[in-house]
């Protein structure tokens, strides 16, 4: 029991609970001293804020920094032994691989939570009429489904980046291990606060939280804002860490254009996260102030402008789409050559296309506002810039096709998910342009067509690739392989179910089904398609249960993984044993002696142990 209570996460949550009460009590106390009555809304906001900080204290995130501040000695991160065994994943650790797994666990927990919310409101939508939920419940579920899964995706890409990037570039750890741990742990209280909005009356606004609607209505919106605010910290600090790691900690001889391609996509993503996330935090913070302090930034009756919020919000939330998908597309580019046994076609172009998408991604936010009432001189330029994104994205697709062309493909489970990702993301990409040209978007905006479109981009750009990544690197993490059979069940159940769901969504959207409505007119004839969408959603959920079963059981009973499981040229497979040792390559020196993806070139290697290089020289002499 004592052991359990001293686990980082348990301690953190206890501190958070106590901190929340202290924060709320503090506000109540100050108001009482001023002779004012109790007010719940500001109390829960201050409670949430203090609670999150208390969590970080409880988990131990400030301990070393405090020591540094008062001048005490602190152990170097590379010399901290850290806990061993399963317990280490639930406490404060500085090891990037442990943090990567922690991110992964949090991502999967949020995936289950966010997905379950959708399963509930999909029952409501399976037939017309209101059966299960009332309006506020429905709106809360829809909004939380969106934001919880956004958090899940952010955690998922952080999981992949944290675990894989240092291994790929030959680094011992991330550049700032303590900041890395902080970035992860702040996301835990953030997720708790985000979910707690359910218990404070929910919120009516959807994940976009447009004022003036978000200025009125239930106060659950404050917990939503606060949760997103802290998730944003996690994103910004994590991105900073990754950029520094990639730019400064590559092994000897690994120029930028010799990095594994995944590192490029993480670099591009991190640049967006580091510079855009502030805007969603800021826009939400302004609405919080509007509610708490009666400032009037966005309410016209007080001199504000609701369109200003939309600009601030989408300035992050559009580039955010590329934050979500670029790492996934990087996974596709990274794994494809391994499984078709051919070099990645046009490495430099693929690398630069990630940067191109990141840059153009900043210029297109206005296409979310074509019907919002922005001026004509804004709508037309935003249409041009929006469609420009197709160019670097096209480069990626054409390069993948050229990589596959004449390749000798193998189809183990990770490859299946890579291919699923390509096809689903293709559909997501192709259904985009009709929403990108203004006049067609006047019809499509805020319909189920858009819902279908972005579920394609999210599944193709994140869900399929992260499953590919998990099946691919699982042996590196656990030393055992996941079951191929169950993996195939997962894939062949999820993919057609997804198509059923998304084609249904786009079909009725084009015919007039609006987004975010709890009920629809039976006269429109959508009942049957809605039922199919719900069935598709549940089948996806079942396939993911199969995945979790596989994930958990294989850790103990999976076939042991020995050597280079996928016959990859990448250093983590070519050099390191499975599971990967603590501190990665500590004591092992390797040099980059070739190109990362020269499959099919006899006798070539990407990396070689330093002593081998020495030996070969001797042999040559």
């Amino acid at each position, binding site marked *: 029991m004592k052991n359990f209570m001293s686990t980082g996460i348990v301690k953190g949550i206890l501190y958070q609970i106590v901190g929340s009460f202290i924060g709320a009590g503090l506000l109540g106390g100050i108001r009482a001293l001023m002779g004012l009555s109790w007010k719940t809304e500001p109390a829960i906001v201050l409670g949430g804020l203090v609670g999150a900080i208390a969590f970080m204290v409880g988990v131990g995130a400030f301990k070393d920094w405090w020591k540094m501040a008062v001048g005490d000695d602190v152990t170097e991160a590379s010399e901290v032994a850290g806990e061993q065994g399963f317990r280490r994943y639930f406490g404060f650790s500085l090891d990037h691989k442990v943090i990567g797994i922690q991110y992964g666990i949090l991502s999967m927990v949020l995936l289950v939570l966010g997905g379950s919310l959708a399963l509930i409101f999909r029952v409501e939508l399976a037939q017309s009429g209101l059966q299960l939920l009332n309006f506020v419940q429905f709106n809360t579920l829809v909004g939380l489904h969106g934001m919880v899964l956004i958090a899940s995706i952010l955690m998922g890409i952080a999981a992949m980046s944290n675990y894989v990037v240092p291994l790929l570039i030959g680094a011992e750890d991330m550049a700032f291990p303590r900041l890395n741990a902080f970035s992860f742990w702040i996301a835990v209280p953030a997720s708790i606060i985000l979910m707690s909005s359910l218990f404070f009356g929910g919120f009516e606004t959807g994940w976009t939280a447009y004022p003036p609607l978000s200025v009125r209505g239930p106060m659950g919106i404050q917990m939503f804002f606060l949760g997103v605010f802290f998730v944003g910290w996690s994103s910004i600090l994590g991105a900073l860490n990754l950029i520094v790691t990639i730019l400064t900690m590559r092994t000897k001889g690994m120029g930028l254009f010799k990095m594994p391609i995944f590192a490029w996509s993480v670099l591009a993503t991190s640049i967006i996260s580091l510079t855009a996330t502030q805007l969603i935090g800021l826009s939400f913070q302004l609405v919080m102030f509007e509610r708490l302090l009666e400032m009037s930034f966005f309410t016209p009756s007080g001199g504000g402008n609701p369109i200003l919020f939309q600009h601030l919000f989408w300035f992050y939330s559009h580039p955010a789409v590329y934050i979500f998908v670029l790492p996934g597309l990087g996974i596709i580019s990274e794994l494809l050559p391994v499984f078709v046994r051919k070099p990645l076609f046009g490495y430099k172009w693929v690398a630069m296309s990630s940067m191109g998408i990141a840059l153009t991604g900043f210029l297109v936010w206005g296409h979310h506002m074509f019907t919002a009432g922005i001026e004509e001189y804004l709508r037309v330029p935003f249409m041009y810039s929006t469609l420009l994104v197709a160019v670097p994205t096209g480069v990626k697709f054409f390069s993948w096709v050229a990589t596959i062309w004449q390749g000798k493909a193998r189809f183990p489970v990770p490859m299946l998910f890579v291919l699923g990702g390509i096809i689903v993301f293709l559909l997501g990409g192709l259904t985009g342009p009709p929403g990108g040209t203004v006049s067609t978007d006047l019809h499509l905006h805020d319909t189920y067509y858009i819902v279908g479109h972005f579920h394609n981009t999210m599944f193709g750009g994140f869900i399929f690739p992260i499953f590919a990544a998990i099946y691919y690197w699982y042996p590196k993490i656990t030393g055992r392989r996941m079951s191929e059979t169950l993996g195939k069940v997962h894939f062949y159940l999820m993919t057609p179910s997804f198509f059923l769901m998304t084609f249904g969504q786009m079909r009725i959207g084009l015919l007039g089904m609006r987004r975010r409505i709890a*009920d629809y007119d039976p006269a429109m004839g959508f009942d049957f398609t809605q039922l199919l969408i719900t069935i598709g959603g549940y089948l996806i959920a079942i396939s993911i249960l199969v995945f979790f079963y596989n994930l958990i059981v294989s850790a103990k009973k999976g076939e042991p993984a020995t050597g280079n499981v996928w016959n990859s040229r990448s250093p983590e497979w070519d050099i390191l044993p499975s599971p990967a040792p603590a501190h990665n390559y500590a004591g092992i020196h390797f040099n980059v002696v070739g190109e990362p993806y020269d499959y099919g070139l006899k006798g070539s290697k990407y990396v070689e142990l330093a002593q081998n290089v020495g030996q070969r020289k001797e042999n040559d002499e």
Partner: protein
Amino acid sequence: MKHFSIVSILVILLTVIVYVFLQAVGLLPTQASSQAVIIDQLFDIHIGIISFLFSLIVVFIGYSFIVFRRNKLLPDEEGQHITGSSKLEIVWTLVPLAVVIFISYLGAISLAETRKIDPQALEVKVTGGQWFWSFDYPDYGITSDVLNLPVDRQVKLSLTSVDVIHSFWVPEFRVKQDVLPGENLVKELRFTPIETGDFMVLCAELCGGAHAYMNSPVKVVTEGEFQDWVDEELGNFPQDPESLGERLAKNNGCFGCHSLDGKDGVGPTWRGLYGSEKTLVSGEKIMVDDEYLYEAIVNPNSQIVLGFPANVMAQNYGDLFTDEEIKNMIAFIKSLD
């Protein structure tokens, strides 16, 4: 080269199949405005491009997997060592760039076409609120909860909201415009109905609560029928307080929240309300009389009935209605026993 010829033929074949299929399933609702015709032409171009690009990628991948599959006798067979081609990369950067600029150009033309202004347009002022639509015809002095429009005449809507953001959308007309609160944020939307019939205006921007039900009928009729409707509205309707009150309530969307059938909605039902006893959120018990109703209309947050949310009803009815009008409305509520 042989492979590329076969693949090209397959790509063309699949493109045609996908395009014909997508056209055949009927993707869009009927075209009931001249803007819909223009917009659907652009949709057509998009569907063509989607069919082609989908076929291009899928056929290349599928063909390669089948034709170049691994020899079963050589399980370790590797692919050819081809690392890239700058020529190809430049081609598939520049060609899409040109296509994209061209599509944007077509998009701009299409937008301009949909926004052509007819100076003779019928003017309608549209007001959206939680959760109703109200339509004012300033030329005739009519207010209605149904959007009546003559066919083949452009209509110019001036849209405004009394509370949060709503969005005006009739799927058959294709066009959509958000409706914003604020006097300086009145937005304009023009379209020309080309087909008579009954349609629905749907609120397309999440506006909380009963957003799903924020729909109002749109009737497109012939010029003659429209004139008849105008005459009827302007002519003989009863002038007693109850009827005037009912008209006022209907045209201001009160029935979106307050039903007349005895079932509580977002707000209390009006049937049997007058004279009943209600418990307020403060715990106080009150009798619904003229005085209470007046206060509840002008200052709705002051006396919320237990079980109903505050901050839902607009706070500005005191400014919007004259005292005479409020008295009429109370008379109407009184008549509902």
